[in-house]
C-alpha cells in the first residue's frame, strides 16, 4: 500500500503499564485515548473515526462498547480482534485515503494481568493441529520449536538468541515507562531456567495491564497540531492462514513478501531504515524478522546479533522502548508510540540522533504479518 504521507500520526498516548487492579479494560483504553486527544488538542467529538482492538482472551475492546462508554458517535468505527496496531493503522489509513473518515482514534486497553483471563494453556496456532491434550501450551512452545529448527539448520546458539533479550533490556533501562529495567547480562540470561527448552523466561513477554492510543489524520490536517506529524509512507501485509497446511509454517517464510512490498511501496531499502521495531511476544519472532526483512541473510541472525548492532549505540537501533520483552505487553502497540516519539526527537536518554525513518514489523502469531514505514518528513 503506497501511502506517501497521505496519512499521518499526530498524537500518541500511553497509560501506566504493569498492574492496574480493579480497572475495566475499556476504561483503561478510554484513558489512553484521552491522553492522545490531550496531546492533539482535540475533543472526543473531533474524531470521526474510532478503531479499537479486542483484548486477548476477553470480550472487551469492542468499538460498540467503547463508543457507548466514551459517549462517541463517530462516522466510522471498527474493531480488530488482534493486536500489534500495524493492522489497525493500515485500516485507519485505508479509511482516511478512501474518505470514510478524516481523523481517527486508534485504541487498545487491557487488564489481562490483574483480570487473569489470559489462557496460557493454548498455544498460538492451536487451530492448525490440536495441541492442548499434548501439553503444547503457551507461546513459548511454538517459539521453542521454531528456534530449535533454526539451530538445527544454521547452528544458531542460545547465547546468540539471548542477545535479543539483553539488547531489549539495555534499551528499556532508558525508558521510564518500561516494567523491566533491572540490568540483565548474557550470563544472567544463560543462567536462568528454561520454560520450554531452548526458550527461557526472558525470551517471552510477560502479560501486563495498560492502554495505548494514536490519532491518525489526513496530510492536509496533519500540520495543524501541537506536535510534529509522523507520516505513513507505506504499509504491507501477508497472511499464512493455512497454518500447518504450509511448509515450514513456524518459520513464517511468507513474511518475506511483507518486506518486499513495504520497501517497494515506500520506495526505500533497508539501508534507509534508521529505527527498527519488531513486535516481540518472543525473541524468536525478532530473530526471524531480522532475516525476512533483510537486515541479515536467512540463517545469519545469530552472528548478526553478536555484533551488538541492535543495542544502544549500534548501527541498527531495535525496539528502543525495550519491546514487549522488557517494556510492556500491550500486544505491540507501544512500539508505534515509541517510533512516533523517536521520530519527533522526544525519547530522552534513549533518543537516537538524526532518526528520520522507522520500520515497524509485526505479526499475528502464525496467521498474518504486517509492516509500516513511518517518517518525520515526506520524501
Amino acid at each position, binding site marked *: 500500500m503506497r501511502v506517501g504521507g497521505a496519512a499521518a500520526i499526530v498524537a500518541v498516548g500511553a497509560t501506566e503499564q504493569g498492574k492496574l487492579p480493579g480497572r475495566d479494560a475499556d476504561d483503561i483504553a478510554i484513558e489512553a485515548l484521552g491522553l492522545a486527544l490531550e496531546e492533539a488538542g482535540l475533543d472526543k467529538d473531533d474524531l470521526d473515526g474510532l478503531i479499537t482492538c479486542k483484548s486477548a482472551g476477553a470480550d472487551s475492546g469492542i468499538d460498540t462498547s467503547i463508543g457507548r462508554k466514551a459517549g462517541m458517535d463517530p462516522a466510522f468505527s471498527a474493531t480488530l480482534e488482534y493486536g500489534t496496531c500495524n493492522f489497525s493503522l493500515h485500516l485507519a489509513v485505508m479509511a482516511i485515503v478512501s474518505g470514510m473518515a478524516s481523523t481517527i482514534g486508534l485504541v487498545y486497553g487491557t487488564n489481562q494481568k490483574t483480570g487473569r483471563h489470559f489462557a*496460557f*494453556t493454548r498455544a498460538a496456532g492451536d*487451530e*492448525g*493441529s*490440536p*495441541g*492442548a*491434550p*499434548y*501439553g*503444547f*501450551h*503457551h507461546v*513459548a*512452545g511454538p517459539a*521453542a*520449536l*521454531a528456534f*530449535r*529448527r533454526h*539451530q*538445527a*539448520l544454521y547452528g544458531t546458539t542460545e547465547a546468540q538468541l539471548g542477545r535479543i533479550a539483553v539488547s531489549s533490556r539495555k534499551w528499556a533501562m532508558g525508558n521510564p515507562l518500561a516494567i523491566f529495567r533491572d540490568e540483565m547480562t548474557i550470563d544472567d540470561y544463560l543462567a536462568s*531456567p*528454561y*520454560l*520450554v*527448552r*531452548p*526458550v527461557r523466561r526472558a525470551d517471552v513477554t510477560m502479560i501486563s495491564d495498560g492502554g495505548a492510543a494514536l490519532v491518525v489524520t489526513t496530510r492536509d490536517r496533519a500540520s495543524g497540531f501541537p506536535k510534529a506529524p509522523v507520516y505513513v509512507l507505506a504499509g504491507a501485509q501477508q497472511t499464512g492462514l*493455512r497454518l*500447518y*497446511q504450509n511448509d*515450514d*509454517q*513456524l518459520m513464517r517464510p511468507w513474511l518475506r513478501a511483507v518486506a518486499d512490498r513495504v520497501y517497494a511501496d515506500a520506495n526505500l531499502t533497508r539501508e534507509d531504515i534508521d529505527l527498527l521495531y519488531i513486535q516481540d511476544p518472543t525473541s524468536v519472532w525478532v530473530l526471524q524478522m531480522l532475516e525476512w526483512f533483510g537486515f541479515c541473510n536467512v540463517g545469519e541472525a545469530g552472528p548478526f546479533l553478536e555484533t551488538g548492532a541492535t543495542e544502544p549505540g549500534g548501527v541498527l537501533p531495535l525496539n528502543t522502548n525495550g519491546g514487549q520483552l522488557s517494556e510492556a505487553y500491550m500486544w505491540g502497540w507501544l512500539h508505534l508510540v515509541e517510533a512516533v516519539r523517536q521520530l519527533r526527537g522526544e525519547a530522552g536518554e534513549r533518543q537516537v540522533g538524526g532518526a528520520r525513518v522507522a520500520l515497524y514489523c509485526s505479526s499475528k502469531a502464525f496467521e498474518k504479518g504486517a509492516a509500516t514505514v513511518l517518517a518525520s518528513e515526506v520524501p
Partner: protein
Amino acid sequence: MTVLQPELDDPLLARFWEEAARNRLSFQRCRDCGYLRWPPAALCPRCWSRRAEWTEVDHGGAVWSFGVYERAFDPTFEAAVPYVVALVELDAGPRMIANVVGVDPDAVEVGMRVTAVFEPASDDAALVNFRPAA
C-alpha cells in the same frame, strides 16, 4: 506421560481419537482430490469438496522440530515435566503436534524418524504420540 482427555465435542475430531483407540492412524481422505485433512473438517481446504472417507495411513514420519517443556502451564502436566512436544511431518502428508515418548528428551533430534504410538485416554479415545522408529 499424563494424558489429558482430548476434545470429543467436535464429532469429526472425536472420530480421529476413536480411530486411535483402535490403534489406527486415520485421516479423512478427500473423495475428489485425495487430500488428507488435518485437523478434521467438513470441507476440503484444497478443493472445497465435502466428500471424504476415513483412511488409515502409514505410521511413519519425521520430527520437524521439538521443544522440551521444563515447566507445566497446566497442572495436569506437572508430573510429566520434562516432556517433549514435536511437530511431526507424517510421510502421508499431514503435520501433527504430538508428544515424542519412549526416549530421553536429550536424544530427540530435528529430522529424527518416528513412528506413531497410541496412548489410551479413555475406552473410546487415544492420543496419537510418536516414538523413535526402530
